[in-house]
């Protein structure tokens, strides 16, 4: 037979080229019984997996929905998992073999210690050398770490006290329209921002509510901060910095008779009539109050900065007042 023909037939798998048997090697893997049926099952599962994977490619090309894509890709993987699991239970020799656990290498341990110990025979000032090397390494470490200071201000917490509110600044709503005293009803709460300032800062957003002036029990020193019972507080919870986005109107008069401002993150609950005193929850400070005035056009304006620092607390949050 000509050589090329044998090659062709070999490629087609009709003629098998000799492969040496493993006769010369001892048996290392226990032989098992064949199970042709299981083989067919595994082959079928693998072909189905190929089909599902091909379907994924087609559906991806056509632009099918996420559900179809996930179903076909997940399905292909699940079929391969099934094929492997069937194979491992029926086709693969699974022997349980014994083996000794590794023991510590006593001799090598000794030797390592001896090598290090004996290598220092020329050195007399071990401790001093050690201290010098440690100092050099430590200082170099500090030098490498030093540029990290550029990440932000160092030991200067003043930026945390800055707010955009100052005497005379108008309150505007989400659309930038000035908030009028007559827009504020007792049945809802309003979010307000400083006119002409960034809204992203924690110090910007206010929550504005109106209560009956006779219910007001503000802390001393806040006389006139709530004209006509209109109160403004920082909208940022003093606990963990979330926006105080819930207003509890009395749903269960017996248990919760008064309206309260509630943070949706950890349910710190504040009483607006008492200057946002903490009624419940983890907040450690009341919401800072912003003094208000009503101007000639009946618009709301700030009468100064907040009663305390806004946002989550840091050591020193009570030490200095807020600034601009």
């Amino acid at each position, binding site marked *: 037979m000509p*050589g090329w023909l044998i090659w062709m037939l070999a490629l087609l798998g009709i003629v098998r*080229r*000799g*492969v040496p048997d493993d006769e010369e090697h001892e048996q290392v893997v226990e032989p098992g019984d064949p199970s042709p049926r299981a083989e067919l099952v595994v082959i079928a599962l693998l072909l189905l997996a190929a089909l599902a994977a091909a379907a994924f490619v087609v559906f*991806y090309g056509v632009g099918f929905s*996420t559900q179809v894509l*996930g179903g076909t*890709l*997940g*399905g*292909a*993987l*699940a079929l391969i998992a099934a094929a*492997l*699991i069937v*194979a*491992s239970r029926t086709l*693969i*020799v*699974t*022997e*349980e*073999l*014994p*083996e000794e*656990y*590794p023991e*510590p290498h006593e001799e090598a341990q000794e030797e390592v210690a001896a090598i290090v110990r004996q290598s220092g025979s020329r050195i007399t000032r071990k401790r001093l050398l050690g201290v010098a090397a440690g100092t050099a390494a430590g200082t170099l470490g500090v030098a490498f770490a030093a540029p*990290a200071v550029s990440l*932000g201000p*160092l030991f*200067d917490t003043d*930026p945390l006290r*800055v707010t955009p509110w100052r005497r005379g600044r108008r309150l505007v709503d989400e659309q930038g329209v000035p908030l009028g005293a007559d827009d504020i009803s007792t049945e809802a709460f309003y979010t307000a921002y400083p006119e002409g300032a960034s*809204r*992203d800062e*924690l110090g*910007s957003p206010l929550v504005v509510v109106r209560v009956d002036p006779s219910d007001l029990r503000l802390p001393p020193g806040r006389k006139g901060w709530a004209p006509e019972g209109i109160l403004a507080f920082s909208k*940022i919870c003093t*606990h*963990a910095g*979330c*926006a*105080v*986005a819930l207003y509890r109107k009395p749903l269960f008069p017996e248990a919760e008779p008064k309206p309260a401002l509630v943070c*949706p*993150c*950890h*349910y710190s609950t504040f009483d607006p009539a008492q200057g946002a005193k903490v009624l419940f*929850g*983890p*907040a450690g400070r009341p919401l800072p109050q912003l003094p208000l005035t009503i101007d000639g056009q009946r618009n709301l304006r700030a009468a100064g900065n907040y009663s305390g620092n806004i*946002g*989550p*607390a*840091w*050591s*020193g949050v*009570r*030490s200095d007042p807020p600034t601009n």
Partner: protein
Amino acid sequence: MLTTRRKDPLRDPVRFIDERTGAAPFLKGVLRYLFPDHWSFLLGEVALYAFVVLVATGVYLTFFFHPSFAETVYTGPYAPLQGRTMSEAYKSVVDISFSVDAGLLIRQTHHWAADVFVAAIVIHLVRVFFTGAFRRPREVTYLIGITMLGVSLVEGYLGYSLVDDLLSGMGLAIGYSAVLSIPIIGGPVGLLLWGAPYPGDPSFESRMFIAHVLLIPAVLAVLLTVHLVLVASRHHTQFRGRLGQTQRRLVGVPTFPGQTPRSLGLMSAVAALLFTLGGLVQINPIWLWGPYETALGTNGAQPDWYLGWLIGGLRLMPGFDVTIGSYTLVPNPFWGGLLFPTVVFLVLMAFPWIERRVTGDRRRHNLLDRPRDAPGRTAFGVAFFAWVALVFIAGGVDRSTVFFGLSYTAQVWVFRGLVWLLPILLFLVVRRWCRALQAAEKIEEIQEQAEAEARVAAD
């Protein structure tokens, strides 16, 4: 017939590799490494395969994600957000979800994989803990495992924080508050990390991004490698069994052929689960939360499950800051948001040494305990995990308020008590239970022995 040089399709490539690398003995060792046959040994592998899916899907997502707080206006196909001002970061994730073919599948698979990854680590930890697998000579393997759990929590948190949707913003505000609450140095540290008061310097997004896609994954990959190398070098632990397992003699299935299809099957099954979840079960629908603005908050968006215990810790604290005069020493979020997880991790890390101190057992252990074999450890473990689990459940009481109408305040008060009382009760009950199981076994043993002796005497 043909008389060409006979080729051996297996031996020849092995010769090629061995001559050039000397790896044949190593390969033989790998193929014949023994895996004890027990289902609970697959839990760590589930985590490993979830990590593989995380890396693969994560790399794909970086091709489309813009880590930038710069403002832009959405004009894509999702109508409710059209014309809305948002950050480049948020817009690119909305685009991945709606405009990139298969983008939503990969994004949701990535998110599901993160949840499954942490869950698998936690269950793996529970198995290791209650069987005493952490004992000498495997304490370092265990320490690395705990470290990986902690690092994974940070990694997952950064992952959903990058998106700059409302959930991200709220989560970051809470993280910022936790950092600020570190006594004395919190303010400066927070400003250093964020670069400016919250929401921080525009570069903060790049800082999170590089941490999420490079620094922390690299740390995880190194820890993972060391963890696996150490497992293999000390060999797996095993349960006592009928195959002559002892402290010195390991019985198991070799990597090849026995374990390989099982392990690959598990990998395919994990990937199948994750892609099916990613395709069929919605997770973190950021287009519903909308872009983050400081003035917005919602209770509808809940963070990933593995942060629930921190939310619980923050919620359960009564409202006070520790102050000295007008100086605030310890702001409130410190207790639940930082001290609580630090204590949990320190106790877990120190446990092998604590146990050694208490029991005086300094021997090497290759055989695993059943929970009943170590009543003290089991009782402590149940109490400890129950403590964390109760705080975790307390993190979800707002949901039971929304769904079942239970009073939020009352539930918080109940949990404030339960969190401390139930673990003590569980400790006593579980220790008793373990001892009773042990005693029952001993009685059975004595009876069997007596019967055997009686039979011998009768003969």
